[in-house]
């Protein structure tokens, strides 16, 4: 596809990214926020993998008789990024569990009210 | 000639499998209550999956690919019904009521 239409993939990814961003900033529930972060992260992964794709290329595992491969470098970066996303998700959820134990709620608005009262 | 026969066999298998998947999905979308929808899921879970995998196996021929497909077949034939069974049991426990016709109380 030629012209600006060849960019449709990036645009949809940006819409996805903004969906995650919206959840993070607009929703008061802390677990929902982490889900939003997860959605955001996943769309960033899709963005990178989109950039790695080469038209008519194939997966970067060397095979006889194949000449054109997709770019392996973004794949490596994203592979490790996915593992880091697991680490951040786990830590975030652990923090949410602790917040729930000390505040009795996971709603951001309620936590603010409690903080101002004390 | 033999090759063509195998091709036709696998295509028929793939097509019928695809029809089963579609029927199951329509059932999931359209059926009125949870338990009948669960019934529809099992159509695509067993018959559709099996036929599509068999079709792919015929295409794969005698190779590592077919071994992996067989392994997948083995896994799916166990996981699908187990998951559906667990779902039905959890739904009964969670007090999901079956659909009853409104007029014939």
């Amino acid at each position: 596809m030629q012209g600006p239409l060849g960019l449709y993939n990036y645009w949809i990814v940006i819409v996805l990214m903004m969906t995650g961003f919206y959840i993070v900033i607009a929703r008061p529930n802390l677990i929902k926020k982490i889900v939003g972060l997860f959605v955001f992260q996943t769309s960033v992964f899709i963005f990178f993998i989109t950039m790695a794709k080469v038209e008519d290329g194939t997966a970067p595992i060397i095979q006889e008789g194949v000449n054109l491969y997709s770019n392996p470098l973004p794949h490596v970066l994203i592979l490790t990024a996915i593992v880091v996303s697991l680490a951040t998700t786990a830590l975030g959820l652990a923090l949410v569990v602790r917040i729930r134990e000390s505040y009795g709620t996971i709603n951001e608005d309620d936590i603010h009210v409690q903080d101002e009262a004390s | 000639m033999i090759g063509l026969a195998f091709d036709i066999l696998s295509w028929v298998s793939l097509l019928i499998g695809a029809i089963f998947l579609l029927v199951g999905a329509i059932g999931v979308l359209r059926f009125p209550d949870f338990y009948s929808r669960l019934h529809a899921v099992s159509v695509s879970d067993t018959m559709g999956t099996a036929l599509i995998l068999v079709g792919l196996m015929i295409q794969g021929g005698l190779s590592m690919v077919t071994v992996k497909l067989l392994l997948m077949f083995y896994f799916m034939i166990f996981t699908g019904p187990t998951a559906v069974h667990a779902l039905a049991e959890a739904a009964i426990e969670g007090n999901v009521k079956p659909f009853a016709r409104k007029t014939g109380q």
Partner: protein
Amino acid sequence: MYIVVSVVILISITMGLVRAYRGPTLYDRVMAANMIGTLTVLMVSVLGFLTGRPEFLDIALVYVLISFVSTIAVLRVSANRYGTARDDATGSAQE
């Protein structure tokens, strides 16, 4: 032929997604997620043949396992959360 099958699978995934969104009960959503898992497995297998590199079936195998384990996990959580009194009775009787 592979194209036809993958299009059918994509249509089915769409229907499953609509069911997962509409609910109405949690179990409907779990069921839809489970179905989408199965369909994704099939689509990845078909895609391998479509692109001419069917040796990537390992991915599909992982999908089978993962969708099964996450279905079981959500059912166990919901059983602990919404489970009826029967659940607690057996639990405490054994203690």
